[in-house]
């Protein structure tokens, strides 16, 4: 089945690398034990867990392995980091700055914090989705305790000037958090070069298992935990550790580090051929996001006069799996907040198509999409009451 479909929705879920599964298998069956136990069975698990932590720390160039906390996934990491930093630093201020294009897990965590009395200020972005640094500087006050801007956007792929944003945040002693879920393992991240204090990362986004993620906490950052219990993970995240998950995550991180150049070359080549041909063959089609500073595996396309869910369903019938940022594709029934923050009119945002490639994508997957799209877009435009004659 998997070979018969063109799976181009890797931002929604990516396939686990078979080498990751292989690394995990011993820990899913034969090897067990609690890393907190003093006996040798437990200590073997402890060693495996700490080895895994070191590999994940290596991918992001963390100075110490202990700065990496394993969680259940990116959403938990973001909750822990933002809520933990806000509550622990409330004595210093109550202002939090975030870009308008953050992932829903960041936005809803901030919404929760604003209900607790924190003042959250959202920084606008330009037409490519780049954070407006001047607006960021203007909104930054002495009472700002946290600044959060995603490393790269999960929808439009735009990579932010992270080092500059971190410098701005640090100029007022604010803690800088970045959600690097779609970026980690795809582009080089160095927490020290980039000035990152707190960072959210995910395992499955880099072809590791689901159910595990990571939180980077720079040593010395004032934090408090969200999940309280036996004090595992340096007290930051209690609960008996998911050793098999950590092993899988670590294997994925190791592979991502070793194969990043190869993965980037492959995905960006397929991506560029998709974008180039689509923009050429389909009238009134556009690329959303930054033309160059974007994740290598991301193409966010937009077709005027049609709606994205219909596109997704039509492509599904042809065995091509993609996503859309249209209102009908969302739980809120609003078009993508990322596209609207970029100044794309609501009606236009309805016709967005999110294509995300993976290490396992093939040129033939891209070809299938490009072959099917012109016909499908044309058909939907012929049905659309707002499409002018020249695009039908």
């Amino acid at each position: 089945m998997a070979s018969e479909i063109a799976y181009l929705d890797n931002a929604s879920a990516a396939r686990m690398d078979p080498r990751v599964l292989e690394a995990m298998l011993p820990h899913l069956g034969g090897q067990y034990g609690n890393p907190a136990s003093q006996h040798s069975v437990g200590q073997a698990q402890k060693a495996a867990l700490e080895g895994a932590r070191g590999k994940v720390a290596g991918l992001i160039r963390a100075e110490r392995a202990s700065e990496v906390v394993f969680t259940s996934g990116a959403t938990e990491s973001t909750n822990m980091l933002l809520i933990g930093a806000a509550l622990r630093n409330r004595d210093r201020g109550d202002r939090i700055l975030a870009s308008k294009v953050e992932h829903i897990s960041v936005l809803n965590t901030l919404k929760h914090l604003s209900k607790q009395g924190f003042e959250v200020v959202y920084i606008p972005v330009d037409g490519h989705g780049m954070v407006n640094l001047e607006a960021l500087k203007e909104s930054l006050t002495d009472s700002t305790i946290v600044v959060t801007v995603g490393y790269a956007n999960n929808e439009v792929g735009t990579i932010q000037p992270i080092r500059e944003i971190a410098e701005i945040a640090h100029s007022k002693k604010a803690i800088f958090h970045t959600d690097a879920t779609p970026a980690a393992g795809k582009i080089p991240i160095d927490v020290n070069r980039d000035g990152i204090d707190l960072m959210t990362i995910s395992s499955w986004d880099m072809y590791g298992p689901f159910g595990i993620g990571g939180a980077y906490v720079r040593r010395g950052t004032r934090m408090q935990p969200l999940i309280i219990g036996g004090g595992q993970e340096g007290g930051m995240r209690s609960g008996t550790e998911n050793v098999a998950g950590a092993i899988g995550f670590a294997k994925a991180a190791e592979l991502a580090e070793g194969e990043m150049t190869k993965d980037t070359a492959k995905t960006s080549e397929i991506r560029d051929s998709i974008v180039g041909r689509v923009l050429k063959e389909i009238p009134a089609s556009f690329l959303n996001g930054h033309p160059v500073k974007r994740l290598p595996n991301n193409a966010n396309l937009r077709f005027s006069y049609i709606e994205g869910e219909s596109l997704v369903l039509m492509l599904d019938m042809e065995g091509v799996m993609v996503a859309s940022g249209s209102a009908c594709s969302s739980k809120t029934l609003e078009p993508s907040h990322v596209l609207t923050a970029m100044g794309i009119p609501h009606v236009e945002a309805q016709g967005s198509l999110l294509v995300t490639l993976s290490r396992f994508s093939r040129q033939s997957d891209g070809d299938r999409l490009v072959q099917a799209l012109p016909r499908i877009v044309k058909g939907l435009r012929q049905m659309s009451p707002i499409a002018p004659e020249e695009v039908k």
Partner: protein
Amino acid sequence: MGLYSEKVMEHFRNPRNVGEIKDADGIGKVGNPVCGDLMWIYIKVKDGRLEEVKFKTFGCGAAIATSSMITEMAKGKTLEEGLKISRNDVASALDGLPPIKMHCSNLASDGLKSAILDYMKKNNIKPPDWVKLEEEGDTCEHGTPP
């Protein structure tokens, strides 16, 4: 298993009566492209019956399927019968719609009503007192995440 019933998907795959009627007797325009759905229903009336019903729709799978379905349901009906077709009638004929789509994309009955009322207005026919659109299509209903 899918997002929609087999009936919805069948109409989505093979929508009936797509297009506009150049010399339509009545046109109904409902929805709001900001919310993701815009539906134009065209009718031809002969001897007090809906002789031809066509549509043009910008929208999701449910919007297209409900548009297609109502053209089939309405054809041959009297104006009054056409006015009586409800959102629930359309949804039931399609073996149901996902709850989130019941409001936003189930505009076809409003579209048909609006087209029949347009015809009545043009021909100085007083619509029955009980007629009203179930919902104005100018605002989107937003579900807010918790």
